[in-house]
């Protein structure tokens, strides 16, 4: 009797365990209900009384593979532009492939000439294109523009960046299609305002946007709208029936798939399970080139890998850096870098030598040359600066060795190898380079956490940045001002805030940047930035190494895309024109 009872107990426990395991059915996608006004895809079972021109069968879904899952789809709650969001959400203006601003939801780009910008630069008038609709059918009005401003500056909303909207004093809406924006003071990068519009009729009543459904399922004016988002797996989009371009988009369904493993992503591209692979590394290009079904697309970007040189003595602004404080030493390091070898060896030739922050575009100066490789000149410069070659090959001056620490994000293979190549190349001219890498979270740590960029406790830093690295909207001002203006030097007085990590102060650059930030005319700004960049190229607080290329892989079946280096992080910027065979 006791044995039977025991046996039953074991059986019950095992059954419970197995029941839990077996009872768990495979997860249904967390399907959020489709909007009831949405027409479904073209019916596959056509009714008998079908007109001669029946709807075309639904096109095959386009599957885009991406490495890092977007945390949410709210444009102002994201750090950088996410390809997942900008198929759905649009703003007043965008940037065309030639680098000029172009109207997206606005009828035209406001300027002083067309009366869109007042003479003192403090009032901007936006006119919306007529007939615009949100993806739920409601009309887009100027109230949406006003609401966007209010939402972005509302302290109840934990938006990640305010992008200058805090400069806005008021937004008047004399009629449904006109918004008159008044600014506190002239804001030269005003064309970057309103990169995305929020729908007032959806979000207007919410106390906070932090937990709104909008964050997972935005309502926008873009060519697609979200159908479902299966967390960790994919987002499915369908054609936006209210999209303003007639007959577009050409593809009915787009799916954004998250690929946590690079090898799995490459395998899936090879088998055709995904059609596009975003943002692949240079080393993966070699594997993919062998596949005849895949086309490699390289888009140049505005970000460049550079060496940031600390001009202060470990953050102490009263003393120049004992080694790097001398411009001749910095110039020598510049000449000592063999960029061609780096690019060929580490990046399979998929990069171009960099020369300055803005080599192209409306504000750029393509005439600034990149420094050629000239170790002879480098050695001569160091000799001139008083650094003599010591017994072990490394230079010495007044008993001090020419030894510099270089730091980058640990674990990043390309950067670590770059450092080792530089060690060799600098060693040739008698400069000792000591590697001092840190894990990503420590490298990027904030001022309050004692991040080395902010405290100034470094000699050389290696990483990528540029006006194109962060936003889809590339006004160079915030980048240039932050990095090169002396007002942004971190110090005790600023509580270590400020982006001028090199502690670089140049009166010429300061006044040029001030000028560029205060006039509207593009030509005048370009001239000012050019002057600043030439001075920077002479003083060399930053040594430019190479311009990264944004590399994407497309299967041959996908057609209709064009390159836009200003939106290089959003390869699907013109997805409404894409087709798939």
């Amino acid at each position, binding site marked *: 009797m006791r044995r039977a009872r*025991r046996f039953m107990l*074991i059986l019950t426990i095992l059954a419970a*365990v197995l029941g*839990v*395991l*077996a009872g*768990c*059915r*495979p*997860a249904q*996608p*967390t399907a959020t209900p489709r909007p009831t006004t949405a027409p479904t895809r073209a019916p596959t079972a056509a009714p008998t009384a079908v007109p001669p021109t029946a709807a075309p069968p639904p096109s095959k*879904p386009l599957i885009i593979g991406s490495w890092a*899952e977007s*945390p*949410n789809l*709210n444009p102002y709650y994201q*750090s950088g532009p996410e390809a997942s969001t900008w198929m759905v959400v649009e703003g007043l203006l965008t940037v065309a492939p030639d680098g000029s601003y172009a109207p997206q939801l606005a009828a035209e780009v406001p300027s002083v000439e067309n009366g869109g910008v007042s003479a003192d630069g403090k009032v901007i008038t936006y006119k919306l294109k007529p007939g615009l609709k949100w993806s739920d059918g409601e009309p887009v009005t100027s109230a949406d523009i006003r609401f966007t401003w209010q939402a972005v500056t509302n*302290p109840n909303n*934990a*938006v*990640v*960046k*305010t992008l200058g909207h805090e400069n806005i004093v008021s937004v008047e809406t004399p009629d449904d299609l006109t918004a008159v924006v008044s600014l506190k003071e002239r804001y030269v990068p005003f064309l970057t305002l309103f990169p995305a519009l929020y729908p007032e009729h959806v979000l207007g009543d919410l106390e906070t946007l*932090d*937990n709104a459904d909008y*964050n*997972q399922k935005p309502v926008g004016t873009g060519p697609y709208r979200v159908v479902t988002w*299966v*967390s*960790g*797996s*994919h987002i*499915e989009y369908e054609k936006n029936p209210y999209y303003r371009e007639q007959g577009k988009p050409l593809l009915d*369904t787009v*799916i954004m*798939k*998250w*690929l*946590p493993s690079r*090898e*799995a992503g490459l*395998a899936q591209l090879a*088998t055709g*399970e995904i059609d596009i692979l975003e943002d692949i590394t240079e080393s993966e290009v070699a594997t993919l080139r062998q596949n005849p079904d895949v086309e490699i697309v390289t888009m140049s970007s505005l970000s460049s890998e550079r060496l940031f040189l600390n001009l202060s003595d470990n953050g102490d602004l009263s003393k120049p850096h004992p080694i790097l404080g001398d411009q001749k030493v910095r110039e020598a390091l510049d000449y000592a870098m063999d960029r061609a070898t780096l690019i060929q060896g580490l990046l399979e030739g998929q990069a171009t030598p960099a020369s300055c922050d803005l080599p192209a575009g409306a504000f750029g100066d393509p005439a600034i040359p990149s420094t050629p490789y000239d170790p002879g000149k480098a050695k001569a410069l160091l000799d001139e600066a008083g650094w003599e070659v010591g017994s072990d090959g490394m230079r010495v001056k007044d008993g001090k060795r020419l030894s510099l620490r270089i730091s980058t994000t640990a674990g990043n293979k390309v950067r670590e190898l770059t450092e080792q190549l530089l060690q060799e190349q600098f060693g040739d001219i008698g400069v000792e380079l000591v590697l001092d890498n840190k894990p*990503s979270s*420590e490298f*990027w*740590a*904030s001022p309050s*956490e*004692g*991040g080395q960029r902010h405290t100034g406790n470094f000699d050389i830093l290696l990483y990528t*940045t540029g006006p194109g*690295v*962060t936003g889809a909207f590339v006004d160079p001002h*915030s980048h240039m001002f*932050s990095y090169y203006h002396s007002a942004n030097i971190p110090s005790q007085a600023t509580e270590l*805030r400020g*982006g001028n990590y090199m502690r670089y102060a140049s009166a010429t650059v300061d006044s040029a940047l001030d000028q560029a930030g205060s006039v509207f005319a593009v030509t005048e700004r370009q001239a000012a930035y050019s002057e600043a960049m030439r001075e920077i190229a002479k003083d060399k607080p930053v040594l430019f190494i190479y311009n990264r290329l944004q590399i994407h892989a497309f299967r041959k079946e996908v057609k209709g895309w064009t390159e836009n280096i200003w939106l290089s992080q959003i390869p699907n910027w013109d997805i409404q024109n894409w087709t798939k065979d």
Partner: protein
Amino acid sequence: MAKYLIGRFTQLMPTLLLITLGTFFIMQAVPGGPMSMYTQNPEITPQDIERLEHALGLDRPIHVQYWNWLTRFVRGDWGYSLSQRRPVLTIIRERVKNSLYLSGLGLLLGLTISIPVGMLSAYKQYSLLDYVTTSIALVGYSIPIFWSGLVAIIIFSVWLRWFPGGGMYSLGQVPTLADRLRHTVLPVSVLALFYSGYFTRFVRSSMLEVISQDYLRTARAKGLSERQVLIRHAAKNAAIPIVTLVALQLPGLFSGALFTETIFTWPGMGRLFWEAAMRMDYPILMALVTVTAMLVILCNLLADLLYGVLNPQVRV
């Protein structure tokens, strides 16, 4: 028995509390934090970061943050993910089914293979079968899953095109059961290879211990058939430590199989934890660590109880 249970449960609370305290403070001590992904973006001004820290409650003193978290957690409010801005409970609920499905099937398949194979191998010790199975078991357990997973993808997905390379179902169409099963085969097989390697050795050694016992000789002498001896007597006793081991593996069904989920693009709990750790998403991390710790403690208790139930000599 009741006293024993009460004793164990009273131990549970302080242990859990200590675990949560330790986790919370260690996370805070690690440099970086949820704002670190924003600091390298020049468009995000220090004022923005300050504003965000205040909005998310990250600028309050650490012990206040911990207390807020604790009082809300026990009431069922697990907070909002800092990056996804969705309730943590919702996120976990979405993913936990996927992990239970994947790891559960992997465990079941692993056991289905390892129990008969282990027993047979012990019964026929020193035979060719024994050597072959123990070698395969060792290999299966030693090969890292990310390698075996990738090899499986290369062979069965890229070369042979028999199975898809990842995901739970095909995208862009209504998923059918057949489609889901096709997607399940590779990841579950890879996991099962690992589990069966792990368990075969234990089953075999446990069986070997039992097989040499005298009472089996008595059973044979009494006239029982070999099958009855093996199954009614030997297997039941050999299974006791295995049941315990399986109970200890159960928390792994919740915490997911990170490598498998990564290689096969499976949206499960392992990847959730990894991604939350990369982003220093404290609410998700705290919830996952606490639940996993609770499961480990409970499953240990379960294992101890089961052992007592099955083996009267170890009654508590």
